[in-house]
């Protein structure tokens, strides 16, 4: 089922949580709203669910205007960050709750619940209470419960936010696999870019109640549309400079800025892995001294102090770092292979 959101607005006591947001989700698609906390991404999701009422705008689910339809009639599945399982009910009754309020008989709803518990890999735990499960298991029960009434779409609000890093990765892969299997239109809210990139067909980056960019994960990373997206997604180095004849100069480097006005301030962002570090002087390389070397597993992070005193963060594969003998105090020559230039925010 598809979703269409047009000019959605939501204010809380004068605070503009969602500011003129429009987007679409196609049938069977997995879309993520990615943004820092307080960006309004959860509010967008809660408006679509009907848990918050929009101040203005339009929400359509499968071509039907649901803006003023109460939550219980929207046929959505919602997964909460803190599971929100019914504490006083068994796992089976939790999952069977949706079919039960929709009028399913005892046998029918228990069969449905068993089938879903089987799908999420929790067979044999039917009679436990939520308090007897681990965090990861609880979230899987929550997912089974959301799926039980056969919703038109699945909304997930930071579903893995309360779990530890390893479990998060595991459940992520599992959820992607589950989505491939059941092809249910899904909208996920997260502040974790790895989660967004791994799971989604499309990512919407949200900041201060607005959508900054809407694109395929790869494109978000390679071609950030705004300075915010560039700095929020992945680590970045940033420098500022004046636009002069379509370029911004920083040391020996010249960044293209033909889209910016002459004489305005520009902000240049580039990722640590877009910094090429050479041990010999080559054309255009800016010399600097390695100030620290941090081992990160497969790669090595270098902090390089340049001639003008600024610090540059570079990321190089561990093999390259070993071969070139990068260590503290060594003089190296830096090149920037890719950068993004935006107007400087005042």
């Amino acid at each position, binding site marked *: 089922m598809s979703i269409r959101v047009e000019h959605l607005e939501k204010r809380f006591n004068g605070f503009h949580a969602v500011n003129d947001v429009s987007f679409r989700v196609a049938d069977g698609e997995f879309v993520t709203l990615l943004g820092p906390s307080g960006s309004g991404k959860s509010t967008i999701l809660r408006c679509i669910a*009907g848990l918050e009422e929009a101040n203005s705008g339009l929400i359509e689910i499968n071509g039907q205007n649901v803006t003023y339809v109460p*939550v219980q009639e929207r046929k959505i*599945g919602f997964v909460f960050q803190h599971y929100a399982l019914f504490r*006083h009910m068994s796992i089976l009754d939790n999952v069977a709750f949706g079919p039960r309020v*929709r009028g399913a008989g005892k046998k029918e709803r228990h069969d449905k619940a068993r089938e879903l518990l089987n799908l999420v890999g929790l067979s044999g735990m039917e009679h436990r209470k939520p*308090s007897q499960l681990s965090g990861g298991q609880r979230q899987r029960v929550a997912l089974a419960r959301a799926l039980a009434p056969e919703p038109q779409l699945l909304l997930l609000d930071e579903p893995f936010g309360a779990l530890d890093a390893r479990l998060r990765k595991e459940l992520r892969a599992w959820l992607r696999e589950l989505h491939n299997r059941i092809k249910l239109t899904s909208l996920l809210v997260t502040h974790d870019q790895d989660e967004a990139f791994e799971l989604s067909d499309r990512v919407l980056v949200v900041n201060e109640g607005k959508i900054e960019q809407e694109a395929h994960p790869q494109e978000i990373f390679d071609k950030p549309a705004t300075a915010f997206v560039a700095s929020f997604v992945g680590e970045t180095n940033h420098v500022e400079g004046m636009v002069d004849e379509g370029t911004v100069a920083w040391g020996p480097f010249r960044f293209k800025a033909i889209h910016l006005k002459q004489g305005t301030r520009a902000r240049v962002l580039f990722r640590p892995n877009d910094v090429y570090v050479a041990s010999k002087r080559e054309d255009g390389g800016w010399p600097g001294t390695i100030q620290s070397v941090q081992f990160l597993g497969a790669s090595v992070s270098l902090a390089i102090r340049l001639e003008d005193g600024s610090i540059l963060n570079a990321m190089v594969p561990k093999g390259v770092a070993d071969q070139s003998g990068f260590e503290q105090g060594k003089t190296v020559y830096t090149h920037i292979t890719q950068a993004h230039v935006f107007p400087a925010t005042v």
Partner: protein
Amino acid sequence: MIASTPKVTESLFVRILLILVALIFLSLVLIVPLVTIFSTGLAKGIQVYWAAITESDARSAIYLTLTAAAISVPCNLVFGIAASWAIAKFDFTGKKLLMTLIDLPLTVSPVISGLIFVLLFGAQGLFGGVVSWLDIKILFAVPGIVLATIFVTFPYVARSLIPLMQVQGNDQEEAGLTLGAGGWRTFWHITLPNIKWGVLYGVILLNARAMGEFGAVSVVSGHIRGMTNTIPLHVEILYNEYQFVAAFAMASILTLLAVVTLIAKTYVKWRTGEEQA
């Protein structure tokens, strides 16, 4: 949850001394009076005791006390659940004011609470005209006693539910709604089972207070024997007439109620703690 036992650093002598002080204090202010009530009540044998609590004025006092409690408990149960639901789950203007109003009966002296009703329904009172026109009796009659009891006891259920519901938040209710349950169904299947022990706890306190209330009821009752006397008022009358055995026999009923309440309260508290774990 991990509970750590604090390390004991005081010497044995200090520990024994502190425990003794606590025990002596406890027996002086609690156990001795408690024993006195029962021993004085039973001083002239079980027959006299039984006669004192089954005599017609005593029976009517017990009946009136039970009536007042039987009306005020359901009234304040509904009010308390509704008020705490509104306060814990929603934001609205005037929320602070409502919370202050709920606490009002706890902060106002019971005698003043009784006087409020005299001022409202007395012959010269605000509703005095309406009351006499309708030809109903409120003051110095059962309705007045019930009203005063309701007023004095209305904070108890709300007070025990608001913190509980605030801690629980809205998550489970929201989950219920997304699963297709309407507001009423969500309340019965999700909210109520989560607060049932809190509700019971509030009702126990409310009931104890309703049966034991003296001040407010005393002002509005008029002390008509066999008509508008509750157990506490009857005890006072008997005591003032030097009928100590009868007075203490009646008092022992309230005391028994208090003991039962305490046991029930402890049980409910223990159950609540277990559910939270």
